[in-house]
């Protein structure tokens, strides 16, 4: 126990040493990924899913709100990118902005209806809204292409006035996505440690107390959900660009479940880095174990169940305990407490 408050110095930094190491390692990925039997596109997928999982964790880990239909905003971002490109203007920046803004609007609309709830009621409502968006995507053939999806999306060049970078090559796209990821990660890190992020973390622990301290709990919950949806939409826009199409399956309930699994296995409830760890593990497991057996998800699902039941701190939590010499028991209690808060049904006024 410490006698005086000593906030982690990382919390005050915009860019931390851990971020620099991560970016450095990620910058070298195209140089060696093929040599270890993997492929460059996997790197793009990992970055995009990491961005999506970090955005999702603003809601799940930071705010303690169980959103199980978050794939909707990822999918809306993907469709917005394609539809903007086809119907409005084929400009990378405008299409990505459309992904972000349209997903934010969808998130804000849903937040209006769910932000007075928490726990299992909140979870059910996010699932319901996610299913509505998914159904609309499947049924609106003339707009979204229905179950066939929105095809022939192109990788637009990144234009900087006089200079333009072609992103059709996977390595070029990888570096572009890495830059977007680094910027978004920095912004989310700062957000999590800002007064706003601390208020959100306080609300996670007790909405009642936060409300009696003068915080408009509903507004904070609605705003963090909207922000999370916006960044999820940005990730969706990048995903549409990466796979040259937007499909409704990313909005489905089981795809929404993937990001929950990634985040919890990684340790998103106790660590900012948990979602990134979870995405690495999930996608590598998909490709490595998936090459050996089609039942790879069975094994990952068992791992997920074990983590939820016995190791709520996840992998990043255990690693943090080891690296920062925190007590594993303390971090585990934090994880258990966060898990309980997620599914508590307390309603505030």
């Amino acid at each position: 126990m410490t006698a005086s408050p000593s906030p982690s110095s990382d919390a005050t930094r915009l860019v931390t040493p851990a971020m620099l190491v991560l970016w450095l390692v990620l910058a070298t990925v195209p140089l060696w990924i093929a040599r270890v039997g993997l492929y460059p596109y996997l790197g793009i997928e990992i970055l995009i899913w990491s961005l999506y999982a970090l955005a999702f964790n603003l809601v799940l880990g930071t705010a303690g709100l169980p959103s199980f239909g978050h794939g909707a905003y990822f999918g809306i971002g993907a469709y917005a990118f394609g539809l903007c490109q086809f119907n409005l203007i084929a400009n990378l920046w405008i299409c990505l902005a459309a992904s972000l803004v349209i997903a934010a609007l969808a998130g804000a609309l849903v937040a209006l209806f769910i932000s007075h709830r928490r726990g299992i009621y909140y979870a059910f409502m996010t699932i319901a809204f996610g299913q509505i968006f998914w159904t609309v995507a499947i049924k609106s053939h003339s707009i979204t292409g229905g179950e066939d999806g929105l095809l022939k999306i192109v990788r637009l060049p990144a234009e900087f006035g006089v200079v333009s970078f072609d992103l059709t090559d996977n390595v070029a796209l990888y570096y572009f996505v890495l830059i977007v990821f680094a910027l978004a990660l920095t912004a989310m890190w700062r957000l999590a440690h800002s007064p706003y992020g601390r208020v959100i973390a306080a609300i996670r622990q007790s909405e009642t107390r936060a409300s009696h301290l003068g915080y408009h709990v509903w507004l904070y919950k609605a705003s963090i959900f909207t922000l999370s949806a916006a960044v999820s939409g940005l990730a969706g826009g990048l995903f549409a660009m990466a796979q040259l199409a937007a499909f409704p399956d990313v909005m489905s309930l089981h795809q929404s479940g993937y990001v929950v699994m990634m985040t919890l296995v990684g340790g998103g409830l106790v660590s900012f880095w948990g979602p990134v760890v979870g995405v690495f593990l999930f996608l590598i497991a998909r490709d490595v174990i998936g090459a050996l057996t089609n039942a790879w998800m069975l094994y990952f699902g068992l791992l997920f169940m074990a983590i939820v039941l016995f190791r709520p701190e996840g992998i990043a939590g255990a690693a943090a305990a080891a690296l920062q010499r925190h007590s594993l028991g303390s971090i585990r209690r934090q994880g258990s407490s966060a898990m309980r808060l997620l599914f508590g049904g307390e309603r505030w006024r």
Partner: protein
Amino acid sequence: MALIEATGVHVRFGDRVVLENIDLVVPEGEFHGLMGPNGAGKTTFFNVLTGRVKPSRGSIRLDGEDVTGLSSHRIAAKGIARSFQIMTLFDEFTACENVTVALPSFRARGFDMRRAAAGDNGFAESALKILATVGLADKGGVRARDLSYGDRRALEIAVALAQSPRVLCLDEPTSGLGSDGVQRLAALVGRLKGKLTVVAIEHDMEFLFALADRISVIHWGQVVARGTPHELQQNEWVKRSNLGRFA
């Protein structure tokens, strides 16, 4: 002039009447005690005062301003702070962070996403000063969940004080405390007396009779007696009831 003025407060949950025409006037600087048996409606009345429960009828005025039915965050922002019978702290936060989040200056920056919260030493300094007033100066860096029960009670009060309230509502502050803890708390509340308007629900009659300027006795959702501790000791109803043996 009365700082708190509750008039004809009536609360019903379905068919059940919980509060019936409660009137309460608390002048600025008064320590007003609320006592009564369990289930009498004391906490419900607190919940009405602090915006957690909307009254079915009646009004609450704070310094003349009608605050009836306002949500808890708006009432808190107007200067009514409360502690809870069942402790409600941010357990993952340190004691210092618990107090920091309660500071009005922090609340004013609640939507600030650009700066790091920990980068502003002014918050920590203010929080440590408040922690010192409740005897937790050396425990600012300890997570709330790791504090002893007595320290957690003190932290509850520190969090309420951090709001710079005009009215401090304490819901059974001595609940679960040993005799040492009660003495410490009595000394702390005694120091606040006169500087702050306090409304306290309390079952520890010794504590309440020693500190309160006036006491209201609530039973079956009604105020059945009111007066100074000395007056209550002479009150026939209080003498007849179980509460009389404490008085």
